[in-house]
């Protein structure tokens, strides 16, 4: 049965034109040059801010795979970030600080949690799915709170950044920024490949019309589950980087509001466009920084802004910029 999809003409989903390359190239070039701002401003502050942008862009890309392509409104992703971060934090506290080992542990644990919770929550759709992912995310949050050996609700300070082949290359803030950026690029290229593969087409097909996809012989469940696990592991990667960057992990990484922030990033950028997820993450992190410098009550402005975007601008930022509607 599945041969039918394999033989579907490729032209329908192939990239429409070269102009679509402009946005990602500009985005990555801007990010790569961002540390130059450090020449005119406080160097470490600029680097830390843009490293944060890059890390959240990775998490938002991960979520975009589940949310944009799969239509899964997941509130689990803060938990995946937190689990990746705690994997790195707990291993560091136990004296293991090899970057590859920590990364592997972060991916394995977040992937496992995504598999376990996804297997249950993907049995449901719609409002049910949202509520169940909220619940599982909250469970991870409370478990992290109760880990008294690892700081409980105070969190856990990492003694040092991890090492690569025993050398502390990542301790340099500039190196760390470019390593994070390289990871973002790798994740972006990977996500693009996934979205354009046969797998990605089935996923989007199931989002647009589940009955039709079922009628041509696909069971959407395994596709969604794999997408959810990949998406969770990417968020876990972001968590690992976040723990390394701040040299600190805490349950506050996993609050459900943090998952809401990620959804805002993806939605503001424009769903299922990948470029949009990066743009949205940049926008949210920088706006938060800008507004919070202006007033500590910046949420009073950001909340109504969000409501207005939902009510009036449905294509997200990328849609406003390019005049296209996504998702």
């Amino acid at each position, binding site marked *: 049965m599945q041969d039918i999809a394999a033989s579907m003409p490729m032209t329908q989903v192939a990239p429409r034109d070269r102009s679509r390359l402009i946005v990602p190239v500009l985005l990555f070039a801007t990010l790569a040059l961002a540390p130059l701002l450090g020449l005119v401003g406080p160097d470490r502050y600029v680097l830390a801010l843009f490293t944060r942008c890059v890390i959240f862009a990775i998490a938002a890309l991960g979520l975009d795979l589940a*949310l944009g392509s799969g239509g899964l409104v997941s509130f689990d992703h803060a938990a995946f970030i937190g689990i990746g971060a705690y994997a790195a934090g707990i291993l560091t506290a136990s004296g293991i600080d090899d970057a590859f080992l920590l990364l592997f542990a972060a991916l394995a644990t977040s992937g496992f949690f995504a598999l376990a919770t996804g297997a249950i929550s993907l*049995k449901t759709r719609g409002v*049910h799915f*949202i509520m*169940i992912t909220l619940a599982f995310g909250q469970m991870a949050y409370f478990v992290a*709170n109760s*880990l008294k050996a690892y700081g409980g609700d105070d969190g856990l300070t990492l003694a040092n950044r991890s090492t690569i082949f025993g050398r502390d290359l990542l301790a340099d803030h500039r190196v760390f920024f470019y390593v994070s950026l390289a990871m973002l690029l790798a994740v972006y290229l990977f996500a693009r490949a996934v979205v354009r593969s046969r797998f990605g087409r089935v996923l989007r097909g199931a989002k647009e019309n589940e009955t039709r996809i079922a009628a041509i012989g696909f069971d959407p469940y395994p596709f969604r589950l794999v997408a959810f696990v990949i998406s969770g592991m990417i968020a876990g990667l972001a968590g690992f980087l976040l723990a390394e960057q701040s040299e600190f992990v805490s349950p506050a990484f996993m609050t459900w509001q943090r998952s809401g922030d990620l959804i805002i990033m993806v939605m503001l950028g424009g769903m299922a466009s990948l470029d949009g997820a990066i743009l949205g993450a940049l926008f949210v992190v920088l706006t938060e920084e800008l507004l919070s410098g202006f007033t500590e009550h910046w949420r*009073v402005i950001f*909340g109504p802004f969000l*409501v207005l975007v939902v009510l009036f601008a449905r294509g997200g930022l990328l849609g406003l910029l390019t005049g296209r509607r996504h998702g």
Partner: protein
Amino acid sequence: MSTALLAVQTLNGLQLGVLLFLIAAGLTLVFGVMDFINLAHGAQYMLGAYFAVTAYGATQNFLLAIILALVGALAAGLALEVAIFRHLYGRDHLDQVLATFGVILFLNEAVRMIYGSTSLAMPMPEVLSGSIRLMPGLLYPVYRLVVIGAGIGVGLLLHVLVNHTRIGMLVRAGASNAPMVSALGVNIGRLFMIIFGIGAMLAGFAGAMVAPIFAVEPNMGDNLLILAFVVIVIGGIGSVRGAFIAALLVGLVDTLGRSFASDILRHMLSSSAANQAGPALASTLIYVLMAAVLFFKPAGLFPARA
């Protein structure tokens, strides 16, 4: 693990249960009838508590404060419905999530701006501030018993409203098939507004009732909201009866789990391991319960839609 302790924790569990029921009842009707996910419901509970504190400060009268809080919660709920929510009923769940999330950000921060981040307290009325001796060695605060009683009372009232009135009939019909109700000539927009108003009042009532025993602070509704979701998932979307039973179940399992998990584990593990694992296990219990219910009954215990 003495009987007195067990009894106290059971009562505490019941108290959490009725509180969750008050929050979940409105939420489950809004889900069931409008297919609308309202994340701001927890913020409406918070508003109820702040209204009560403010009204008490102005009037120094407990009963009046509760009534004013109810009126305030209803007004705030209807204002939100008219200004924002009614434009979202037909929309994607994602849009609903984002817009209501924006409302939470705004309400929490607005309250923080006006009242500050420090938690407020509301004094409880003199007559209810004592403790009562329920059995030898067991003193229990009267006010907490009143909260349990009031919650059960509201539950019964809601039961009568939903099962024995014309509005209730429309609500039940709406929960099982809203487009059909609309097609039969019922003003569905007005029905939605009534349901939303009832939900807002129930959440506000819950907030007002707990103002004397909980810390009244800006984010107080956020975590309770997720527990209310667990209740709705277990009870079945759209079912008030399901919400009631599931709320008591979740309240009891959570409270008793937190008090006794370490003790029970101590029979199986070493004392220090039990102290480490107990709290972690206790905090997952209700979610495991939810997963188990979903596994056997994916639509919850009492689904409103057949």
